[in-house]
């Protein structure tokens, strides 16, 4: 099998609307990675009303939103009562719109992009998933773990 995007990508992909809230997005993560699915989902492609890819939402984007501004100071203030802070922070995050925190600098590949070109992008840009676009349409997504899995047998020396 040729080592190119279309042979590594997942074509049963999930997307989320830009107008969804963080709560809806995380529910979508949970469903997409629910029982019977082979992976847990920590990120998704964000689409507009026409289904065009306009951003990526990752766990990291949500974690950045959650990180309190002054944590480097008050983490040491053991005399301040912060019980309940997790609930408060999560509650505030739930209603934030996906479009306000998503990454809009998109990096995509085409179905024919070579495995090593994909690997190079993933390592340089610190991303673990890349949308595969054909003629402006989303056709799949490549995960770094699937890329590694593609090389599994060869790396292990099995079947030699």
């Amino acid at each position, binding site marked *: 099998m040729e080592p190119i995007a279309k042979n590594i990508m997942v074509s049963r992909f999930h997307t989320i609307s830009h107008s969804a809230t963080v709560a809806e997005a995380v529910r979508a993560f949970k469903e997409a990675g629910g029982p019977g699915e082979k992976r847990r989902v920590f990120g998704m492609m964000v689409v507009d009303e026409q289904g065009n890819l306009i951003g990526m939402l990752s766990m990291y984007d949500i974690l950045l939103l959650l990180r309190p501004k002054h944590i480097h100071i008050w983490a040491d*203030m053991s005399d301040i009562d912060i019980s309940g802070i997790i609930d408060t922070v999560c509650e505030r995050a739930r209603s934030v719109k996906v479009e306000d925190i998503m990454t809009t600098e998109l990096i995509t590949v085409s179905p024919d992009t070579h495995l090593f070109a994909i690997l190079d992008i993933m390592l340089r840009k610190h991303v673990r998933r890349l949308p595969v676009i054909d003629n402006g349409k989303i056709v799949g997504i490549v995960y770094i773990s699937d890329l590694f899995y593609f090389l599994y047998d060869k790396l292990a020396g099995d079947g030699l």
Partner: protein
Amino acid sequence: MVEKHSMLSGFKVREAMRRQVLSLPDSKSVGKAISLLIKYKISALLLTDGDGRPSGVVSKTDIMNAYYADFPLDQELRSIAAASPITCTEQDPLEAALEVMRQNRIYRLYVYDQAHTRIVGLLAYPDIVGLLYRLCRSCKRNYLIQKGVREEAEVIRRFTVKEVMTPNVQSNRANDTLYTLMEALSQYRFGAVLIKDHSDNPVGVVSKTDLILAYKHGISPERPAHEIMSSKVHGCEASAYLAEAIQQMIFSDIHRLFVYQDRPENIVGVLSFTDAARVRSGSCRACLTTRIKIEDQGI
């Protein structure tokens, strides 16, 4: 002003600096910088030239000034950046770095490695406050600890908001234009102005963050304040304990509280998180000299 033999004596910059320094090539756009500032909840970015060398700094204030000057969002950052970044090295004494901040009236220094070849950190004023806080709490001379005051609550009941707040709050009218607000903020020590209605009642707050978001969203600076203000005024009572105010800021994830007396409409001061944390540090009789003060710093 830092006195000799303060609690910070002997500390080096590298012990208080943070190592994550966000930077952008200076050929990138103002719009891109706004996205990063908002996403990472920070107040400035380091700029780098074509060779990756530090070439400038762009802060929320610089971006606000670009908005004021009607620059387009795709303007290159190098054209709006302040002069080259003010730096120190990681081996410098912390007190010397504080003095540089004071003299230049800034509250962040970029930190070079010892060989002066690359930027390895950022020393921000709140980070020094954080360090002081840690030192104070572990200090053997802390008289509250000496006296065997075990009850933490005893320690925090020493200050009220009124003692620490800054009186004289900058306020504007709900129908003042964003231009007017930016003029007010550029002269002001704090990062936000209080918005009042015709009867002098507080109705909202506009921060520098709100302004750079308005810029990003293409809102004309001729629009009135009430269109972009946050309608919640986070306030606390002047007689409240400082600890309660800090707790409120932590839970609301905000930098400042508007302080009121008798009734919420009667705003008499403003309290920043850093001011609050600073006073709680080095505040016992053992080392009053440690209480650092940098004049006219807007934190």
